């Protein structure tokens, strides 16, 4: 019972704080007569969701689908590259400097040029998300493939197993917890990537709305977008978390 109660408390207490903060926010701004375009009140933000000219569902989907497509590409390429650089010394030597170079280059800096090279379309936006998310997946996956119990490798090899068997029976399953750690970092990064891409060029999406709310001084639209971004970000993170738990019932954090 004590446990059940503390479980509920973990949700209730922050919610009470939220309600208090919203009240302070609302009445504080009214009292100080802060103009709407500097900081909107919670009520104004709520009203922003009912702005007739904005299709929130469609714009959310635009940003979400860019993030998802980039995330998927990043996962496939990240995992694939990790396998390649772990299994081949030659390719590791050849590719590592380029992979690191791609990572140290600030993605925001190259974003405008990506559009020139790949065109002002979704491909560029997805590519930008991909650039931002593939690295944590690659690094974590590569670590998971190498950071194995050498005893297990000795055990398999003493029974005549080859590299492929070692890879399939030891390295690959061993890498799963590491992969999911990488996926969690990248899932949140994917939303960042999509917004950055939309800031540089877009005709729809939450990044587009935020940018336009700045031009039109309609800040409550930006705040409404933030709320959606938080919800979508949490959703994506939870999906990864849940898939991890389903894929690895054997996993307990040490």
């Amino acid at each position, binding site marked *: 019972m004590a446990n059940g109660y503390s479980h509920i408390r973990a949700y209730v207490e922050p919610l009470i704080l939220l309600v208090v903060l919203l009240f302070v926010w609302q009445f504080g701004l009214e009292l100080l007569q802060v103009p709407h375009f500097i900081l909107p009140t919670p009520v104004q933000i709520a009203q922003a969701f009912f702005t007739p000219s904005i299709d929130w569902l469609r714009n959310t989907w635009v940003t979400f689908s860019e993030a998802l497509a980039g995330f998927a590409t990043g996962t496939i390429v990240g995992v694939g590259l990790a396998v390649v650089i772990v299994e081949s010394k030659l390719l590791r030597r050849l590719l590592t400097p380029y992979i690191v170079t791609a990572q140290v280059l600030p993605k925001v800096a190259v974003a405008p040029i990506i559009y020139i090279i790949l065109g002002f379309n979704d491909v560029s936006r997805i590519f930008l998300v991909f650039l931002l998310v593939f690295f944590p997946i690659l690094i974590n996956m590569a670590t998971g493939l190498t950071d194995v119990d050498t005893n297990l490798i*000795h055990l398999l090899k003493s029974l005549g197993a080859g590299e492929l068997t070692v890879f399939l*029976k030891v390295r690959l399953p061993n890498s799963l917890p590491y992969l999911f750690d990488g996926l969690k970092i990248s899932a949140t990064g994917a939303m960042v990537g999509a917004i950055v891409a939309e800031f540089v060029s877009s005709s729809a999406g939450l990044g587009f709305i935020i940018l336009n709310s700045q031009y039109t001084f309609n800040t409550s639209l930006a705040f409404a977008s933030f709320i959606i971004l938080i919800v979508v970000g949490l959703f994506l993170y939870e999906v990864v978390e849940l898939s991890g738990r389903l894929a690895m019932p054997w996993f307990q954090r040490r």
Partner: protein
Amino acid sequence: MVPEAIESPNSVLRVEHVSKTYTTISRESVLALDDVSLDIRENEVLTVIGPSGCGKSTLLRLIAGLEEPTSGTIERQDGRAPFRVGFMFQDASLMRWRTIYDNVKLPLEVLGKKDEGEIVRLLKMVQLTGFERKYPFELSGGMQRRVAMARALVHKPSILLLDEPLTGVDELTKEALQAELMQIIRAINVTAVHVTHDIDQAVYFSDRVLVMSARPGKIIGEIDVQLPRERKLSLRTEQAFYDYCKRLRQALRLPTD
């Protein structure tokens, strides 16, 4: 005293004048084993004891065929089945993503064999019947070691290799596990090579102990342990057990008074 490899009709494996040199990253040559000869007889437990870094583990890897000697030969006798080793390590070294049953099954799987009956039999021997569907994290440290025992034996190895097994287990659990492991070794009559730096465990497990010097590893002594073949837990309280421990300390050139 350097024992020569003795001609013995029932030897399972013979190591003759084996030396092993490693090249370090800084390109220095390190002699890990220096002219080691030994003969492993059928159904005996042979312990190689020596200080850390004396090349004991190197010797096991050579026996397992994971490495080749720099010089000398290792002769493996195929018995009724091809020569195979079973491994028990310092840690349980289980696959945490596999159930207990699938962990024990691993050697059979790698060899492309099926022997459900042997898995069930060994799980029963290590008293883990009913835990087949559990994952390693759900078991205590001692239970995990018993899974490792079953896995080391499931494919009926020609030699069981014990690489400082039961390291890091608390003393009381360790004595129980030693007794259990010894009982199983005797019950299925498996030949075993055991490397350790634990004097008590060396005497408890062995029919014969070879003493190794610090690097480069060289065999500097041999002691026949003529204690009853069945090793009871109470053996430790007997005078004969103490006497062997003392002789072993002397052979290791450790103070005995």
